[in-house]
């Protein structure tokens, strides 16, 4: 595979692509330190104030804590329900399997506006008042399929001989599940939960249709966009970004350390 274009074309391209991907992130960071007034359009000098007094700006922290609450509750339900389905799909043979796969695939293939408007119509027909709990119901629904897909991959890579060994040693099915299967699935379940939290936390379109008067962080940014988003919103966005990146990097570094240790002992 020798490209006549030269060795450096692809690396240089990759660097340019990463710069392009990172520009808006850097921009958001820089403007979180802007000594801005109400809007955050023009650079007015450097300050740490927005970081130290985030909650001074009305609505930012309320919206943020709503989003965290919604994310945690939806993730909890979606992860439990989705993991159960994933185990059933990989471990057991049964009828209607392809229809079930289709039912799980459809929510991922449906545009968010359609999911949002559909649920809103249902709540309207049933006379349900929209608010935080209708947002949670919506989020569990669209996170579920993503959890199933993520956990399914993990269940499929699990060696059934380990469970068999447990059964041979007279463990009952409950013990086999909690002492062997569950700990082995845990990394998959954890990444599914993280994905689900990320999807819930950043969702705007479905949320907007089912929120009523309640705010989430993305909704706050959307409504603020009409008159200018304050720098405090950048602070929240950047803090979440840093937390997520730290989490990903630390998992990767832990995995790498483990890999090297294993390589040494062999």
């Amino acid at each position, binding site marked *: 595979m020798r490209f006549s274009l030269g060795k450096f074309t692809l690396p240089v391209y990759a660097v340019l692509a990463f710069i392009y991907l990172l520009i808006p992130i850097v921009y958001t960071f820089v403007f979180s330190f802007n000594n801005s007034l109400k809007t955050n359009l023009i650079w007015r000098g450097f300050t740490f104030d927005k970081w130290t007094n985030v909650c001074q700006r009305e609505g930012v922290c309320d919206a943020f804590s709503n989003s965290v609450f919604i994310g945690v509750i939806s993730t909890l339900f979606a992860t439990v329900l989705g993991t159960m389905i994933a185990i059933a799909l990989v471990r057991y043979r049964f009828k209607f399997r392809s229809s079930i796969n289709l039912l*799980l695939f459809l929510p991922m293939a449906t545009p968010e506006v*359609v999911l949002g408007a559909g649920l809103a119509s249902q709540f309207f027909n049933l006379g349900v008042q929209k608010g935080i709990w209708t947002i949670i119901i919506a989020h569990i*629904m669209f996170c579920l399929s993503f959890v199933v897909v993520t956990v399914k991959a993990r269940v499929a890579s699990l060696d059934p001989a380990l469970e068999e060994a447990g059964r041979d040693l007279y463990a009952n099915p409950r013990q086999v599940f909690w002492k062997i299967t569950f700990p082995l699935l845990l990394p998959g379940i954890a990444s599914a939960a993280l994905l689900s939290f990320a999807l819930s936390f950043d969702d705007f379109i479905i949320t907007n249709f089912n929120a009523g008067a309640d705010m989430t962080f993305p909704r706050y940014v959307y409504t603020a966009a009409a008159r200018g988003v304050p720098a405090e919103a950048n602070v929240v966005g950047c803090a979440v970004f840093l937390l997520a990146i730290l989490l990903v990097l630390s998992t990767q570094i832990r995995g790498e350390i483990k890999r090297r240790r294993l390589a040494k002992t062999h």
Partner: protein
Amino acid sequence: MAFAAFGSNNPTPSNKPTRSGKVVIALLAPGLAYLAMFFLTPLFALIMVSLEVPDPAGGYAEYVPGFEWGNYAYVISEYFPHILRSFGYALTATVLALLISYPLAYFIGVKARPWPMLQKLMLTLVIAPFFISFLLRTLAWKQIFSNESWIVTSLHNMGILDQTQYVVGTPFMVIFGLTYNFIPFMTLPLYTSLERLDTRYLEAGSDLYATPAKVFRKVTLPLSMPGIISGTLLTFIPIAGDYVNASGDFLGSSSTAMIGNVIESNYLQINDYPSASALSVLLMGVILVLVSVYVRKSGTEDLL
């Protein structure tokens, strides 16, 4: 496919059929019931609402159940430009995202193989935009290309843009934003299939005197087809329904409004539920038809 991992170790069904049957139902029932309640019935609710008629005795924004198929004819004739625009933007942005992502995914998945740590770092960079709020990163582009920005000022000075022309609010800007926002959805599946590409096939190709271009067309491209299919689907579907990028408060203007914008404003602002619902059903129907034709044509049905 998943069963391959288990091989003959799979418990035989005759072993304890009734018990495992109960376990399966217990595992599946809660989740599937949830989807039936909050995914399937809402779709039916949407279809019902799309056929409703204005309440003859009621006031503004009050509707009664009906079978007004004319609602569909109305939205198609009224919002035809928006429908065309949505699929046009979605197609353009998906193709652009594919062109931008493929070399990047190839570099990470094939060229960077000797350095696994670098591969992981680059993958983290690819998904980094996901970690900053979707709306904030879209707004960042709006500021970067705002009318007073140095980019637009220098475009004016160089005479590329007329003094009266700006970037924000144009179809270019909306497609730019859509492409940017969905690139990670394209790069990740491409990476996954390129990462598994056996480079010995490529060597075999060039040993048989194929030019690099021919090796790419005959070997690399077909082998990465699953990644291309799932990447294009993962970008095209959300883009076709997006309304944030094209919104007037973000990168668009009234002349760039997509189906999503019409659904949003008809549903949430002017409370014209039947037309918003009819448009939603139409959007979903078109996407399902396009996706099934596309998947069948490309011969990768097993992907689903």
